[in-house]
């Protein structure tokens, strides 16, 4: 979330799209009901199904699965053609005025530079026009009249998304679309703010990242970023999945979202240079220029004295990524028999990665599989025959499976980072059962044994393992407090203030004494004098103590800031980009919802300013300090795989078979830049055989595949079901409560049919499209009635940028079982 859970109460309009907050986030939803009751906020829901969120909404509009970009692009067009944008905000806080390379264009489904063979783009034309005479700054057209300025390019691009065409693609009735567009556009005035709540309904698509970008553009055009009650808010699906993301348990990034080195980054110098941007406009903060400080401090946290100036801060000990290591890539490699062993921690991939059959084959090719989990999982039992639910030939599987019982959250002490980016410390409530150990203890014990082996036997490259800093009081079981202090970081030597330009002869001041915990990331240095395991979490455990454990419920502004409750990264800031919540002169756009304001000498207010405190309105510094432009990007330059503007592409399994935005281009039906593995393209179903659109989702009664182990949860939603509209049920002669077979090109499941009025057939391109809803949650382990893993049906393809699997739009057929 750019804002916070509590901040939802400040909204005038709550849009739920690409998610179902009431269903999946019932506790956070209290802030929606709060906004509705106390501010008279309106709630609008756009979803293929009439959801639990829709049950309490003011307005609901249906949409076909996988067509959100078309809908949002239509909203952009509506806003631009009806002058419903916050023009002052757009001109000063976005790159609307920036001039784009005049070779850039978009034609019939492709942006410039498409390479069909590689399924990727040469992005060299997706950049700005630079002024060679002025520090390579980007050239701008303040009048926004140039055909090459972002504003005009955007206008042209989205003018194609007429309400009629949107309705034809999305199946949303035109009047319903216009009504929603009207609600959204109505918040373009400074006195009205919209928040958008989304979740995996947007991310789990082959165009997932662009779904979110489209909404980010809308929020920039409306001037809703950086404002109380605004922002783009991802509701995270696990108590600590924000923490996992921040700590970057991914191969592409290091903790704090620092790009990880690849084979191309042969030296530390090259690596840092590529990732340390120069400002693109004059006087910008360009905060990512501090990258070397963050990275160097990380290396000091990881390698201690073994990272020093003489060895380039252990840069050579870092693994350099040669290829993709996202989840789909890993399981593809496993499927090809190229992985020997798999350590599976808090993860049930047999259920959570698409195409269960492929997964089962992949696991059977492993020599060993280690599962660390508090519960028995389907993954750990992939080798066992559970009749139709997991019909495998056990005696042909040679994989050796080890199960290491881990603790669950209530059995361990540590921190959670919630969707609001707030780190909250929690204490162990009860002793773990049996032989269960914390994940930290299991990992540390494994590490210690491995390190001993490397020390004893050597190896190809033992350095990284042998030199890792591991100064915990019990090396086999680091205390959570020790790890927390480590990721906050400390001063290894005295941290000195930069020389004062006014008194250059004055001896420099000591900001932090050697050995002290750091108060914040501004203290990080690139000379090895600081260590920090995650620059974003710097400040969470300062010299004052554990700030994550703070529980002060005072809220002086009444805006739900709660500045002394836990610690909100970055820098305990609750609303990101809050400088944009004030006008260019530094006055809040809405004095009733004042985040920060310029008081004549400094930025101050209810929140921690998201700009250098003394960088006043006259400085020309933009509010989006994490971009070298200083402004928000309506045009994403080369940062996205499939183009600088979000464009509609059909899901890989489309019930229409054509991309109505470029009907003559058969190669741009689905995302042309999405990665498809060999063999998977053939596994995509065609609409002739699989005529119905399908989507998977959660139910509020359950949490993933865990709570089917809990009796109270299992009783409230005991058995697997699928939802089908009453029209389709009638067509197929399916009665409510009857067993049905749902088939995709990858497998089939059997479940009870819940026949409902809540899923309507949609009129798409002149034909009727039915949708089948498939809740996840059932499997062959646990107290709930046994069921089929829903990923038996889903296709093995992901978003072109994040590789998040396309669980939310695919094709099936349905018949009576």
């Amino acid at each position: 979330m750019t804002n916070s859970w509590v901040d939802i109460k400040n909204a005038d309009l709550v849009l739920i799209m690409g998610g179902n907050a009431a269903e999946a986030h019932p506790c956070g939803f209290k802030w929606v009901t709060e906004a509705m009751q106390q501010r008279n906020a309106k709630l609008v829901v756009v979803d293929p199904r009439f959801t639990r969120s829709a049950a309490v909404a003011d307005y609901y509009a249906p949409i076909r699965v996988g067509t959100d970009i078309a809908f949002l692009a239509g909203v952009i067009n509506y806003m631009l053609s009806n002058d419903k944008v916050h023009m002052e905000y757009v001109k000063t806080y976005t790159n609307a005025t920036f001039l784009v390379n005049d070779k850039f264009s978009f034609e019939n489904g492709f942006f410039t530079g498409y390479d069909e063979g590689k399924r990727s783009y040469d992005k060299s034309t997706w950049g700005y026009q630079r002024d060679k005479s002025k520090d390579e700054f980007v050239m701008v057209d303040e009048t926004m009249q140039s055909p090459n300025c972002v504003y005009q390019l955007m206008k042209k691009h989205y003018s194609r998304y007429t309400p009629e065409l949107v309705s034809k693609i999305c199946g949303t009735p035109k009047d319903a679309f216009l009504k929603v567009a009207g609600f959204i556009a109505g918040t373009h005035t400074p006195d009205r703010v919209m928040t958008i709540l989304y979740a995996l309904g947007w991310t789990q698509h082959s165009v997932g990242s662009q779904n979110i970008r489209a909404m980010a553009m809308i929020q920039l055009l409306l001037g809703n970023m950086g404002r109380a009650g605004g922002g783009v808010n991802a509701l995270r699906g696990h108590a600590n999945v924000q923490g996992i993301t921040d700590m970057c348990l991914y191969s592409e990034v290091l903790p704090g979202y620092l790009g990880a080195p690849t084979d191309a980054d042969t030296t530390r110098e090259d690596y840092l240079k590529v990732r340390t941007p120069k400002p693109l406009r004059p006087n910008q903060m360009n905060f990512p220029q501090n990258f070397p400080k963050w990275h160097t401090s990380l290396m000091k946290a990881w390698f201690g004295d073994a990272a020093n100036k003489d060895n380039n801060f252990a840069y050579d000990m870092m693994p350099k990524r040669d290829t993709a290591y996202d989840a789909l890539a890993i399981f593809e490699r496993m499927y090809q028999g190229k992985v020997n062993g798999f350590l599976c921690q808090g993860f049930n991939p047999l259920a959570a990665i698409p195409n269960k059959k492929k997964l089962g084959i992949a696991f059977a090719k492993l020599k060993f599989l280690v599962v660390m989990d508090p519960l028995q999982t389907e993954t750990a039992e992939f080798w066992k025959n559970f009749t139709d639910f997991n019909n495998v030939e056990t005696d042909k599987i040679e994989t050796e499976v080890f199960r290491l019982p881990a603790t669950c959250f209530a059995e361990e002490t540590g921190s959670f980072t919630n969707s609001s980016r707030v780190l909250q410390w929690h204490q162990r409530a009860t002793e773990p059962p049996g032989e269960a150990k914390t994940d930290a203890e299991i990992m540390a014990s494994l590490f210690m044994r491995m390190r001993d082996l490397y020390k004893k036997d050597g190896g190809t490259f033992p350095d990284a393992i042998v030199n890792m800093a591991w100064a915990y009081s019990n090396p086999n079981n680091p205390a959570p407090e020790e790890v927390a202090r480590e990721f906050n970081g400390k001063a290894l030597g005295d941290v000195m203030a930069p020389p004062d330009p006014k008194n250059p002869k004055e001896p420099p001041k000591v900001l932090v004494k050697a050995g002290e915990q750091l108060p914040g990331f501004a203290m990080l240095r690139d000379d090895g004098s600081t260590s920090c395991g995650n620059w974003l979490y710097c400040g969470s455990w300062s010299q004052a103590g554990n700030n994550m454990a703070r529980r002060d419920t005072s809220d002086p502004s009444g805006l739900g800031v709660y500045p002394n409750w836990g610690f909100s990264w970055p820098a305990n800031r609750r609303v990101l980009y809050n400088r944009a919540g004030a006008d260019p002169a530094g006055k809040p756009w809405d004095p009733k919802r004042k985040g920060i304001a310029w008081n004549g000498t400094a930025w101050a207010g209810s929140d921690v300013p998201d700009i250098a405190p003394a960088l006043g309105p006259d400085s020309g510094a933009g509010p989006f300090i994490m971009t070298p432009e200083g402004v928000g990007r309506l045009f994403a330059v080369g940062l996205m795989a499939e183009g600088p503007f979000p464009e509609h592409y059909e899901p890989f399994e489309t019930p229409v078979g054509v991309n109505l935005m470029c009907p003559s281009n058969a190669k741009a039906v689905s995302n042309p830049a999405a990665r498809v593995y060999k063999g998977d393209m053939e596994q995509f179903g065609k609409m002739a055989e699989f005529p119905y659109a399908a989507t998977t989702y959660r139910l509020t009664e359950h949490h993933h595949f865990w709570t089917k182990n809990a009796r109270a949860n299992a009783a409230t939603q005991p058995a697997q079901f699928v939802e089908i509209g009453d029209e389709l049920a009638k067509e197929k002669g399916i009665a409510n409560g009857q067993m049905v077979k749902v088939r995709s090109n990858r497998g089939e499941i059997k479940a009870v049919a819940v026949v409902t009025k809540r899923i309507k057939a949609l009129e798409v391109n002149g034909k009727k499209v039915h949708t089948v809803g498939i809740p996840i949650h059932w499997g062959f382990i646990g107290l709930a009635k046994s069921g089929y893993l829903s990923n038996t049906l889903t296709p093995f393809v992901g978003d072109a940028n994040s590789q998040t699997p396309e669980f939310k739009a695919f094709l099936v057929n349905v018949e009576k079982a």
Partner: protein
Amino acid sequence: MTLQSSLDIQARSATTTPSPSVRSSAAVAKLIDESKCIGCKACQVACQEWNELREEIGNNVGVYDNPSDLSASSWTLMRFAEVEDKDNNLSWLIRKDGCMHCADPGCLKACPAPGAIVQYSNGIVDFKQEACIGCGNCITGCPFNIPRISKKDNKAYKCTLCSDRVAVGLEPACVKTCPTGAITFGSKEDMVSYGEKRTKELQERGYANAGLYNPAGVGGTHVMYVLRHADKTEQYSGLPKDPSISPLVSLWKGAFKPLALLGMGVTALAGFFHYMKVGPNEVEDEKSREEA
């Protein structure tokens, strides 16, 4: 299921002696704001947890209502109804079902077992299972079809409004757990005035027929609803518009009661004469007879 003192009993089933009256307590009420309810069933689970009940793991019968009905171990239940108006506008009306704690409780009136159903002066209607004879009259007496007889012990069960929690100043478990603030608890007076406020807010929001459900036919209830469509209460999975106690119960309590009492008296008398004439009923010992 109670921590209340007998001092707080206001009415008692099949009892002719007057209730204690030296002290009284303020009437309480639970208000369920349907417009804020998302049907998450947290209240169902909280009810199970607090009362240490565990429902059987059933089946899906084609609806979201799970378990599919109230039972001796499920005292509250979310009922889901899909309703389309004449313009095909769909509503998914979700109602938390359970005991309404009527001010004039039909169950208590209908109950023939002395003290098996009591009403406290705070308005809570509670079942005392130790005195329950499992006759099921309370089900007939209930205008909301709430009590359920356990197959295990043949006794009637229903929501207690967490009388044990309320007795020590806590809110019922469902109220405590409700994530959206759809369930609130307080004095009946406060809940009525909050319910009226919510009604007004919803009317201003466009729900012209919003209203507070506190039906007079049962003397008002200590569990009330704020409904967006109070004009069509039946749409909420059959919530009766004007509930009243079954005439059978009134008959039992009214004209038939003296007759019934007479009948009971005659039976007792007949028993007495039988004893005097024949002596005590004795069951022959099967075993000793076989041995003989």
